[in-house]
């Protein structure tokens, strides 16, 4: 599913000095895996997730998604990949202001299929248990509910890959557990889930942990699934 080979990413600071965020990273994630990427701040884990999510391009090395080599892709081609193959879940939810839950879920359909199917959006909301709240604005929802709307939005074009960047970072433990429960469900349906987190309790949902440190891949190991229903 995800094949990263000798990948490097160098940023330029404001004063022009280069910063190596990722150095010679290689790993392979199979379809259907549930993986966490961990590491201290500045270790390069978010940079890695942005490249995997086609929001950013590597400076060197290769990145293949579903066998497609993406490093030479144009903005339009990468956008197409984001629309159909990838669903993002962010720490800060990123719901659109003054927009209902339902309208938020509909957004990716504008860029994927091109036409908005309200019934499908409604079904996606029902799936995350928010059918009743479809016509509420983001500000009227709790943090956990907002994150569930974001998950429904990530799922609406039925992508095989879910990328979550600290999805429980802004939630209390109950709401966090709810969100993780949904992510686990997605994994059980056969989707690949890649999760960036600091939180041990969250990391415990995954089957595999990739650890970053100072821009290099420090360890990559299978872990026992501790969290249970």
């Amino acid at each position, binding site marked *: 599913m995800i094949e990263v080979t000798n990948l490097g990413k160098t940023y330029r600071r404001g004063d022009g000095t280069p910063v190596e965020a990722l150095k010679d990273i290689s790993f392979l994630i199979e379809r259907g895996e549930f993986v966490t990427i961990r590491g201290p701040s500045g270790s390069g884990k978010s940079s890695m997730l*942005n490249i995997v*999510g086609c*929001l*950013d391009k590597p400076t060197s090395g290769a990145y293949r998604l579903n066998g497609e080599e993406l490093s030479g892709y144009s*903005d*339009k081609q*990468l*956008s*197409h990949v*984001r*629309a*159909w193959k990838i669903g*993002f879940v*962010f*720490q*800060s939810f*990123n719901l*659109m*202001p*003054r*927009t209902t839950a339902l*309208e938020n879920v509909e*957004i*990716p359909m*504008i*860029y*994927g299929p*091109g*036409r*908005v199917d309200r019934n499908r959006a409604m079904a996606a909301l029902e799936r995350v248990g928010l059918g009743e709240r479809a016509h509420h604005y983001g500000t009227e929802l709790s943090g956990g509910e907002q994150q569930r709307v974001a998950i429904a*939005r990530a799922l609406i*074009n039925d992508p095989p890959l879910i990328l979550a960047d600290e999805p429980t970072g802004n939630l209390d433990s109950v709401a966090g557990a709810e969100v993780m429960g949904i992510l686990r469900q997605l994994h059980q349906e056969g989707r690949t889930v890649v999760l960036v987190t600091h939180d041990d309790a969250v990391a415990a949902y995954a089957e595999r942990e990739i650890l970053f440190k100072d821009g290099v891949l420090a360890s990559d190991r299978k872990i026992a699934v501790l969290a249970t229903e």
Partner: protein
Amino acid sequence: MRITSGIRIAWRSMSRNRLRTFFMMAGVMIGICSLTILDSVGENTKRETMKRFKNMIGTFDTVIIRPGAGKTRGMVSLTNVPPTLKFEDAAAIAAELPEIKQVALLQNAFDIDVKYKDKNVSPAIFGVSANWLDLRGDEVAQGNFITEEDMQSLARVAILGSDVVPVLFPEGDALGRTIRIGDVPFQVKGVLASRGAGPGGGSLDNLILIPVGTAAKRLFNRDFLTMLIAQVREPEKSDAAVAKITALLRQRHHIAASALDDFTLTSPQAVMAQVTQMGSTLSTILKGIATIAMCIGGAVIMSLMLISVSERRKEIGLRRSVGASRQDILVQFILEAALISSFGGLIGIVLGLGGTNLVARMQHLPPIFALRALEWTAGLSVGLGLVFGIYPAWRATQVDPVKALRT
């Protein structure tokens, strides 16, 4: 992204930020509104001026000949007439130049008292030839006009302008009555239909017409003329006719080759060309003002769009993360700008038409709907949004989604 989705997104964004949308519209609205008013009123005024000039000049296949050099074009001075243009000149032009169909004569005077019983007025007295009616495009409302027989017999008959009748004959029974012009009795033979206002706005109806021979021999005792109107056989060759008349008059007046003409020729076509020229200068100026107004409206759109783009970095980042390409973002913002300025323009046009008709009512002119103005103001308001939306929209495409989405 489909264009319909783009329009829907733009519409939602507009309705979510009503105040911003209103201010963006306001610039275009005011610009287009004032433009519509200026253009329509300008057009209306031009038309009215043309109408008045036409009124004064009469028919269009004519050349006006006046004594004296270098007269102001268009306006005919009826006072201080140099005594150089004679009856014989008129006869010669009519007889010797095949290009000329006929010549009408005018001799005039002011400040002559006209009396009927105890009432009196002092209109302009025009001594004219029998063909005056044809060449001026006048109409007789009652009775008859001066005839060739009247001319031959130096008849003392008078045709009254429509302003004179109510003063001398409040009952309206002017025909057949005897009035006194100076001390000479004249019989009222006809009444002219009203011509309305001339270019200066003054009435063209405050006058009395009498046969020109009668005027010269029995009233003014003068052998020179105020004006001749020569009708050209082929109006498209009026330049050639002007040259022929000039040559003939110079020869008759014994003017040396190096000296200037002692007369002035004006073809109404030349005058109208000048009026038209004046009108188009006016509309060029108006278009200049319009351009400035539009640029201000455009600058308002652009600056508010730029603010909007920086406020909506998160939205842009989110759209990019769910599959929007840079091009999708560009189209979305340009559409929004174009939609806003189109709405602003539409409201501006509606207000402008209202304003136009208000102005027309104040000028006592018929209301107009300047369709010509609508076409280009409508185009302008759409184009404005497109042009001034491009830069902010481009800026929106440069938003880095990674940075925008970071908390």
